[in-house]
């Protein structure tokens, strides 16, 4: 099956946040009225119910003021650190089209995927004790629809399609930008994670951190180690933990919540 991908052309992003709302609506997320953080950004960071955040970054360099806006979400890595770190079978899967999807029914809430992600994307819910992130709208793409954010983007900043073709298009766009005087324009598709299924066109690819993106992301060595030589150890610990929980339950029964809310 061909791999799909999402292209974010940051030179066309106007920070309208339509993708934020589309993401929440399609995925039935709860809306939260947050605090004021001194910025145009909706909230400081991603959240279990907020998988797609436009980061606003205002800075001055060489006397020139810039206000960059860029979508921040799961990159759907070719070699995903989250998957490498995950001890729960079937909780993180790579679909045939390249999507890295979380199956919450198999998630044990250990949060190892958060450590494994070089982009700091997955978020653990305090309520459900499961981890959440962008699914690349796998329920839409499975039936031939584009992801919700793509559908709603008003400026064509977001496009979706076959990965190789899109990557080619991204390179062409970067070339166009370089010809227009953006000497450092390029595509962000970091090799440290084997490439991604979400890539960016940046006017200054030499400084991805201006857009809130890590410069040379790679899966942490601890995670590589964990899924490498010491994996058997981890599995044993995990199995031990589950068994322990089971025997604890058999011995002491379910934990009862004490309702402190009065009338």
């Amino acid at each position, binding site marked *: 099956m061909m791999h799909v991908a999402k292209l974010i052309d940051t*030179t*066309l992003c*106007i*920070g*309208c*946040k*339509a993708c*934020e*709302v589309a993401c*929440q*609506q399609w995925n039935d997320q709860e*809306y*939260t*009225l*947050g*605090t*004021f*953080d*001194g*910025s*145009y950004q*909706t909230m400081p960071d991603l959240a279990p119910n907020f998988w797609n955040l436009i980061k606003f970054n*205002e800075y*001055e360099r060489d006397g020139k*003021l*810039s*206000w*960059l*806006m860029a979508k921040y979400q799961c990159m759907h890595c070719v070699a995903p650190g989250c998957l490498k770190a995950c001890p729960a079978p079937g909780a993180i899967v790579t679909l045939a089209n390249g999507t890295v999807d979380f199956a919450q029914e198999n998630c044990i809430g250990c949060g190892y995927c958060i450590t494994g992600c070089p982009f700091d994307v997955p978020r653990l819910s305090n309520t459900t004790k499961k981890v959440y992130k962008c699914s690349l709208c796998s329920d839409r793409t499975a039936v031939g629809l584009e992801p919700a954010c793509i559908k709603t983007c*008003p*400026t*064509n900043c977001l496009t979706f399609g076959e990965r190789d073709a899109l990557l080619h298009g991204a390179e062409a766009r970067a070339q*166009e930008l370089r010809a*227009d005087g953006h000497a450092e324009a390029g595509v962000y598709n970091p090799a440290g994670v084997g490439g991604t299924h979400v890539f960016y066109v940046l006017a200054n690819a030499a400084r991805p951190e201006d857009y809130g993106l890590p410069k040379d992301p790679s899966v942490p060595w601890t995670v590589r180690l964990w899924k490498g030589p010491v994996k058997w150890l981890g599995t044993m610990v995990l199995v031990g933990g589950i068994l322990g929980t089971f025997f604890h339950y058999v011995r002491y029964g379910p934990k009862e919540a004490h309702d402190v809310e009065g009338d």
Partner: protein
Amino acid sequence: MASLAATFGRGAMTNGWTDVANADVVLIMGGNPAENHPVGFRFVLEARRKRKAKVVVVDPRFNRTAAVADVYVPIRAGTDIAFLGGLIHYALSTGKYQAEYVRQHTTAPFLVKEGFGFADGHFSGWDEATKKYDKSSWEYELDAQGFAKVDPTLEHPRSVFQWMKRHYARYTAEQVSSICGCSKEDFLKAAELITVAAAKDKSGTVLYALGWTQHSHSVQLIHTAAMVQLLMGNIGMPGGGVNAQRGHANIQGSTDMGAWNMLPGYLKLPRANWSSLDEYLKANTPKPLRPDSLNYWSNTNKFMVSLLKAYYGDKATKENGFGYDWLPKAGETDNYGWGYLFDNMYAGKMEGLISFGMNPVANGPNTSKMLGGLGKLKWMIVAENFETETAAFWKAKELAQQYYANSPDAARIQTEVFLLPAACFAEKDGAFVNSSRWLQWKDAALDPPGDALRDQEIIGRLFAKVRELYAKEGGAAPEPLQSMSWSYATPSAPSLVEVAREVNGREAASGKQLSGFGELKDDGSTACGNWLYSGSFTEAGNMMARRGQEDPTALGLYPNYSWSWPANRRILYNRAAADAGGQPWDATRASLRWTGTRWTGDTPDYKADAAPDANGSFIMLPEGVAKLFTPDFAEGPFPEHYEPAESPVENALHPQVSFNPSAKVFHSDLDKIGSVKDYPYVAITYRLTEHFHYWTKHIASSSQLQTHFFVELPDELARQKDIKSGDRVRVSSARGKVEGQALVTKRMRGMDVNGKRIYHVGLPIHWGFLGKVSGPLINNLTASVFDPNSGTPEYKGFLVNLEKL
């Protein structure tokens, strides 16, 4: 809209959204389309990608649009005329204007009467005693036939061209810099880019919105932009024009269908001094000012009689002046614009108000005065989706004590308020008229919830009941209601298809739908609800529902997509996109071309088979060409820089006439004007992309994107006041105050204005005392100061003080 109508002949965006992609230069000023028109903004980005167009943003704030622009120039709020006047001077003094276009398509060659002049801030005819202009010197010199004299060489000292050159000679780059607070280099960089469009094969567009309309000199401001665009040869051109971005889905439609001073189709409202249809037509049918002027308003009689036939049906006869007597008449000089309306209300001169789709407490200037006015009414009907601040105005003191401590308690307010639940846009069918003048038909997505009714049913029921009461109980002047034609299948709930067919017009006898306004007659044989929309619903069906995506000119005109007024023309004044021989200025953007026998391309804004030299290219104007000199406006035929009513500096050009002498200022006890001594900072109000006006604070998904009202502050000013992002601050004006958290940013800068450091304070609108999120109403701060021509309040550039709490 008042400005564009006087300058070009029609009050609407000249081109259209899709056409912006054809531009080589995009000047965005008085608008922030990336923020407020994100969907339309794609065409700006397309122009940039496909045509390598340069985008120039001029604004007090480095905003979302500036973030993706090529050049950003900061200017002080309220100084746009100085900036644009500077562009005129730059173009004329460097020769960077399209001379052939200017000679052929504008009033540049027209001679102005002797006696016209400008000195020390006033045009000729100023009467200091009455504070009014006698406009008799603002006229063309006429020949024996009553036509304006012209000098095609443009050299006559009294030609409009020479007058313009002299008038703007004062607007040098140094002067622009000193008034606007931008650097001379930035101004010149922008000027150089903008005047690239002077080349015959280049075009530039101007995009603006409420940042231009909300000034005490807004109509003149937009006229200045129109003058720049005429000098560049950009009007009528694909990728050109002066493009007003309307702020609501159907705001263009609402002005097309009438306003307090206009009947549908921009026909003037009858006034008491025009006591018969003949007198009305005599006063409102212009005479041509050039022999070749098509002067399309000479058809006013056909438009008006057909409108009266649509209103009164068989009861409208030649003998009774087609029912003209039944129309309500305003007094000769009456003004029912917003400022006057609420001033009268506050003075206790009004009994009741019906407020449909409008939230005056939130969007009117000087909230205290809005609240005070509504409290003096006997009754008010509000038809809305939500309980708005207007419907709940009597609770203001209770709900927002810190702002309205001086308002009366609810128990002391006698106004009886009826809040009628109304359907929202998705629950209604009908047409939206967008900025591009496209009438786009839509179907209702769902039925209104609960007791909510669609507007037409609310109006239908009210009408039926009032008419019934008149029949039963009698009353003063029942004829207008009793004579009204109301032949809908369900009179209490007309269908919008029925209304749309009526608006398009039909033959009175056969009922056959008309195919366009060319078929309208003045003998009562045709009925038409709005001549401009004639052609939108023909015998062939509902043209507005079309969704054809063919693009034969490859210019994004899409002639089969919806229907565009007038006559499905996509670019207004398109005749001017061609030279004297009828050939396009730019062959690669040929919107219209004369074949030798007829015009091909877009629907010509010209007679389809008239030779290129037969008529002037601006068919709606008596001049036949676009007006550089505009005697229509209250404050002068050429735009002049005047400071806002509240300004931190004196007018550098004429300190003794600092403020627009014709602007409307009210003087009730609540109408206070502050001075720079007490209120040293310049405030501007604006929308955010996350919210739509005062609606979306009722919606969780939008509210979460911007939960809190904030005050946007220049980093430099914040440091002086020891304010950090997130600190609570109070902003106060002579009228009231608002409180909220600070957003400190480098995107706003101090500006050097005539040797003085000036700071802006940015105030987003959108909050109020009702909704999922709440905050202060920003119009607590604004003043009842209005443009004299359009009646629009001055929301951009008023004085405030700032304190850290």
